[in-house]
């Protein structure tokens, strides 16, 4: 298999710095990695592409010493090595920026960088030398950070820089980036790409895990594709197209563009006026004097970088948080003082941002979770007793209709389901309620290309049937392709209203980063 690949890398160093050969990792009931081989060259950016559950994380965990493979071996500079734990990996120069950052919130940037490798003298930490090294690295790679800032007070982009500095501080030369762009603005993504390129030019080997095809095309040299735990192939990126890569990843042709007709907005369903929501993190208000309308038959998208008040906005609409002032009207009826149940019954369904916190009772079975919003309806209860047959029947219908996969069907504990299928269950539950307004917060987070396509189609279908859809998303592609109208939130305010047909991604990015803003004057058109 590998001999044929040698054809590609003629100009580069043919030796692999790190090579994983025929890795097989089995979990009860599933082969997570089935005979996967991957070689990483010095000075290349190697993308690892695959859907959720394709085995990317497992493979990386094997490389990082978190799992021991049943079969296969790992070679460093051609010599077989045993990686029993992350310390072994670090000793071999392997560093990783995890998707969910591993930082201590209440520690300073410097403390986080030296965590675990603190320089000590007589048992006391000596930070002076460490500080010098960190500052030198930060300057060299243009990774500007304030070493004394607390992690909890800095932006996500800066936290990522801290993670990168952590690897550099440890003199790692094999760098793994696990979906690093998910939380960044377009501008930040561009910067990251440049930095990654710089690392590669310096001779470091980079493994770039992602499922965003355009990023691979922009920055990677080679790309290895996994599907359902199996090795599909490694391609030279300069000879590949997005369509080819997505087909390799999904196993069939995928519609990358959302197909939809023009929106036909009808009456106003939800009208928000001068709404102010307090923040739990800081003394400022998280949502400042926001006004907007959502119409029947449109998908209104709230775009913005994570943490600019979108979460609080949705909490206020759904009733999870009280508002300080302003009004929320649904079909002319004031909702802001109503209970959550009343709002739900008034016609709001809500796909929550955090599926584990709000979306599911993890210890409940799938069917119990599927009736979480409707268990009290006469359909599912009689005289206070749950109609188990009806619940089962309904659950099986949704499982079938929305292709929710799980080990034991209706009785599977939600906790044991994969993230993507948990999300599908929530989406099924909320869309099936068929309410007038669907609030959907990052509905496709953690879903693979095939499932994303399906969710987008369902959102458009809701719109086409005359429902109002309020979509909150951090994914620019999603915003641009699904929305009929975009509102950009920055620091708690709506700073712009854009038409996805006429604006560019770059323009949207500028609004999101706060570099550009319109005078929204109360948010009215």
């Amino acid at each position, binding site marked *: 298999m590998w001999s044929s690949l040698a054809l590609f890398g003629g100009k580069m160093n043919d030796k692999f710095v790190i090579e994983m050969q025929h890795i097989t990792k089995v979990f009860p*009931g599933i082969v997570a990695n089935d005979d996967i081989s991957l070689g990483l060259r010095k000075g290349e950016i190697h993308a690892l592409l695959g859907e959720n559950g394709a085995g990317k994380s497992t493979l990386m965990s094997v490389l990082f010493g978190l799992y021991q493979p049943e079969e296969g071996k790992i070679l460093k500079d051609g010599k077989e090595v045993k990686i029993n734990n992350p310390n072994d990996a670090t000793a071999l120069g392997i560093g990783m920026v995890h998707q969910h950052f591993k930082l201590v919130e209440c520690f300073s940037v410097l403390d986080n960088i030296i965590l675990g490798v603190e320089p000590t003298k007589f048992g006391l930490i000596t930070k002076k030398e460490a500080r010098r090294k960190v500052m030198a690295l930060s300057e060299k790679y243009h990774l500007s950070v304030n070493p004394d800032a607390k992690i909890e007070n800095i932006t996500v982009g800066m936290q990522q820089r801290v993670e990168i500095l952590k690897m550099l501080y440890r003199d790692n030369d094999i760098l793994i980036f696990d979906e690093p762009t998910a939380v960044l603005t377009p501008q930040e993504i561009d910067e990251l790409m440049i930095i990654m390129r710089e690392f590669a030019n310096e001779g470091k080997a980079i493994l770039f895990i992602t499922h965003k095809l355009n990023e691979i095309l922009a920055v990677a040299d080679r790309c290895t594709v996994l599907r359902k735990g199996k090795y599909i192939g490694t391609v030279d990126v300069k000879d590949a197209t997005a369509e080819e890569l997505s087909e390799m990843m999904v196993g069939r042709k995928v519609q990358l563009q959302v197909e939809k007709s023009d929106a036909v907005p009808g009456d106003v369903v939800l009208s928000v006026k001068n709404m102010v929501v307090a923040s739990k993190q800081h003394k400022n208000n998280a949502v400042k004097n926001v006004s907007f309308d959502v119409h029947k038959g449109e998908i209104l998208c709230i775009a913005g970088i994570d943490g600019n008040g979108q979460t609080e906005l949705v909490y206020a609409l759904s009733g*999870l948080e009280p508002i300080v002032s302003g009004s929320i009207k649904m079909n002319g009826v004031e909702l802001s003082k109503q*209970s959550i*149940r009343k709002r739900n019954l008034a016609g709001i369904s809500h796909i929550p941002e955090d599926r584990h916190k709000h979306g599911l*009772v993890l210890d409940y079975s799938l069917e119990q979770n599927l009736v979480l919003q409707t*268990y009290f309806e006469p359909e599912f209860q009689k005289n*206070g007793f749950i109609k188990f047959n009806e619940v089962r029947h309904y659950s099986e219908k949704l499982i079938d209709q929305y292709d929710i996969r799980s080990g034991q069907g209706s009785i599977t504990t939600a906790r044991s389901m994969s993230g993507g299928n948990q999300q599908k269950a929530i989406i099924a539950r909320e869309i099936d309620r068929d309410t007038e307004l669907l609030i959907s917060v990052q509905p496709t987070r953690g879903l693979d290309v095939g499932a994303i396509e399906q969710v987008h189609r369902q959102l458009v279908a809701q719109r086409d049937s005359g429902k109002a859809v309020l979509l909150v998303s951090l994914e620019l592609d999603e915003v641009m392709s699904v929305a009929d109208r975009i509102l950009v939130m920055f620091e708690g305010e709506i700073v712009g209203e854009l038409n996805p047909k006429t604006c560019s991604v770059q323009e949207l990015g500028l609004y999101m980063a706060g570099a550009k803003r319109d005078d929204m004057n109360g948010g009215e058109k």
Partner: protein
Amino acid sequence: MKKKFKLDSPGMQTFLASVVAIIAGLVVGFIVLLCINPAGAPKAILTILKNYLNFTRPNLILKNIGGTLVRTAPLIMTSLAVTFAYKVGMFNIGVAGQYTIGIGCCMWAALAWDWPWYLCLLFAVVGGMVWGAIAGFLKSVFNVNEVISGIMLNWISLYIVNIWLNNDLTKETVSPGTLQLHNYAKQGMIPTLGLDKVLNNEYFGPSIFVAIIVAIIINIVLNKTVFGYELKATGGNKHAAKYSGMNDYRNIILTLAISGALAGLGAGLYYLTGIEQWETSASSLPAMGFDGIVAAFLGGLNPIGVIFSSYFIKHISIGGTMIDLNVYSSDISGLIVAIIIYFSAFTMIVRMVLKRLKERKAERGEKQ
């Protein structure tokens, strides 16, 4: 085939784990007895296990079976209280206090107000309920951990009841004990319905049956009703419960109130038999509350399971009083129970082992 099916069910696993814990507890208890006095140890451990079977005369056996069952009833109730709260995600350590308040209420109602037994019982339930609701209120409104408030409320309840019953209306003049119900408040005693004759034990009445019926009802409420669905959802994830429009504040208060009511009912079912006097000089909480926690865990936190675990605990602790007290302390059965609890913490481990065995078997089956 049949055997495999049984191993599969979580109920069976819990049962097996509890049995393992019990055996381990007895073995360690036996070792302790051996250390104290090797010669008498086998006899002592047998005595503990035999309890009423130590007697030879049938009517004495019956009388002691009755005595064990009378004491089992309140334990079933307190362990149900713990189980119920636990299913809703709360650890009601305040069950001892709720039980104590229940005692105070039923004693006062019977002795001072001369209320009929059913009202005394109701008063005990209400008392426990209010006491539980206080902890629930503190938790839901002020986010006070129910364990902390429970412990403090426990001690508050003890001294309140001591002061409350330390009174000419309720206390004997010469001793710190409350007045005997059968002398001063016969109307307050739960009628035995002739069951006392059946087991030749004047205190044996319908209490144990009431406790079992309540356990069955709790099992149904938790597993079959919308109310139980809501409570367990709140316990499992209060954010999700709130998100779906359940009243999480109300559910938390309600849960601890019901838990407290169960403990209060336990107090009534026991003290209104007239079997025991409350010592107004008591400086420690009645063990029934804390034993409830023990029985709940040993019973696998299952409302039906606690019926059996409660009986078992009472069985061996009463058996423990029958050993040769010149050589051993009657606390030996307390020790055994304590060890059993430590081992039931291993319930999880045993379950895991069983699960893994099953998975391995399944895997092997797949390969073939």
